[in-house]
């Protein structure tokens, strides 16, 4: 259980931070796709007798680089990603059927298996988390610039294509980490939802990232704590907390706006 909190903390902080750029760049679908494509890698690795995380990492970074290379301007990107995504999910199904062992491994990949995480896996997660965070800090300004206005950033000498690829590779690593907590199917809850809530509160990039990280952390910790007492999956609690908060914020927004309009300031 301690391992779960440790790994959950690392993953939540990374997911919350990178989620800001996912929202800013409107790459939510790409993030989602990465995790699904990773599913084929993870199940394939299980069949080959390897650690599923290794397969996951290879598939997500590979496809992340490819999606990044397609660039932001390509309008048909969503369609292309969707086509590749469907095929890799098919591959994943094949690999599951080939695997003669328990279905638990596949279940953990799909829906998360943080409660069974080991000490060495926590160490790997922490290391990957540090690398991801360092990469985000290094890329911060040019990434922000090219996310807001790619054409302008390119004219100012920002290597936009390189950044697009680098961001997707970093995202792929973050997705791989997050999969351990919530699984490939529920990745949105940690990467996209906290950031999507944060940008509704503030338009300061630094503050939005901080709020996103705190929210992801809160969802993970509270989810883990509830799961300690309740006999239901952690992933369910984390995703529900994320969804519930998002709905509350969206409902509160028009109410707050109308209150502001009504008050004589």
């Amino acid at each position, binding site marked *: 259980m301690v391992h779960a909190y440790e790994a959950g903390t690392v993953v939540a902080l990374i997911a919350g931070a990178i989620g800001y750029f996912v929202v*800013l760049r*409107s790459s939510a679908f790409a993030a989602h796709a990465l995790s699904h494509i990773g599913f084929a890698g993870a199940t394939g690795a299980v069949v080959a007798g390897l650690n599923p995380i290794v397969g996951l990492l290879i598939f997500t970074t590979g496809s992340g680089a490819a999606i990044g290379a397609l660039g932001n301007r390509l309008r048909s990107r969503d369609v292309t990603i969707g086509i590749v995504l469907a095929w890799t999910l098919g591959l994943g199904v094949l690999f599951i059927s080939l695997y003669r062992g328990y279905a638990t491994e596949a279940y953990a990949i799909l829906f998360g298996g943080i409660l069974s995480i080991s000490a060495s896996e926590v160490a790997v997660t922490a290391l990957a988390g540090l690398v991801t965070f360092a990469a985000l*800090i*290094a*890329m*911060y*300004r*040019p990434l*922000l*610039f090219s996310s*807001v*206005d790619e*054409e*302008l*950033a*390119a*004219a*100012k*000498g*920002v290597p936009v294509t390189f950044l697009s690829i680098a961001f997707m590779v970093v995202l792929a690593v973050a997705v791989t980490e997050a999969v351990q907590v919530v699984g490939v199917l529920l990745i949105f809850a940690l990467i996209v939802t906290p950031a999507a809530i944060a*940008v*509704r509160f*503030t*338009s*300061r*990039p630094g503050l*939005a990232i901080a709020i996103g990280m705190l929210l992801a952390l809160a969802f993970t910790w509270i989810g883990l704590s509830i799961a300690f007492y309740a006999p239901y999956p952690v992933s369910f609690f984390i995703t529900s907390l994320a969804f519930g908060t998002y709905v509350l914020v969206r409902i509160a927004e028009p109410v707050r706006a109308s209150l502001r309009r009504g008050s004589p300031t």
Partner: protein
Amino acid sequence: MRTASAAIDAHDLTAAYGTHIVWSGASFSIPIGSFTAVLGPNGGGKSTLIRVILGRLPPARGTLSVLSRPPARGNPLIGYIPQRSTFDPELSIRGRDFVSLGIDGHRWGVRLPGGPAAAATERSLQAVSAEAYADRALGRLSGGEQQRLQLAQAMVGDPQLLLMDEPLSQLDVRNQRIIVQLIADLTRARSLTTLLIAHDVNPLLPHIDHVLYVAHGKVAMGRPDEIITSEALSEIYSSPVEVLKDRSGRVFVVGLEEEVSHPHR
């Protein structure tokens, strides 16, 4: 013929994407401190001209000097407003953050507090009178407000050359007049050399020194009253062009539209 007082000097310049020649044989010289309108039909190569000046598209032939140097990406002496419709309404970043990216958005890492960026941003916001809404989300601002912030972004590095790709296209007539006046004032007060792409010359006529006409594979330059005439344009483009004037003195150019319309970009 190279003159010391030229901000942009083109000699027998040809722009091409692969084997497709956009325009060729362009020779013109834009004096320092002048305000030039870049006119011509859609798809004629106006944005391509800006791309060549920015160093994003190498000339296929001929020579070009920009501020006495060969064109190069990321020249801090160039302020640039790319062509766009408007910012995504969901774009949750403050105008202030956007403007400050014009200073150091191309640098790696995060901005350290106490640097010159904040003061320079504030000055630039003041220069375009955008302080009142600089802390609101860019996506939620009106077209005129967004345009002022784009101008603040272009001006923030104290450029010598200002390139603007259709900055007026999303504005109503009143805001067009206000923004053009602002651009003209800044051009005069700071001895800027300003190139502005527009599809309607009328709001610019009281302010511009020169017109660059880009159409039918050719680039021609002249004073507005000399070049925007039926005779001059008909001769340059060896096809019948009519310049019509209405009662309020507004001019309309008829006959330079492309026969085959091809999309911008």
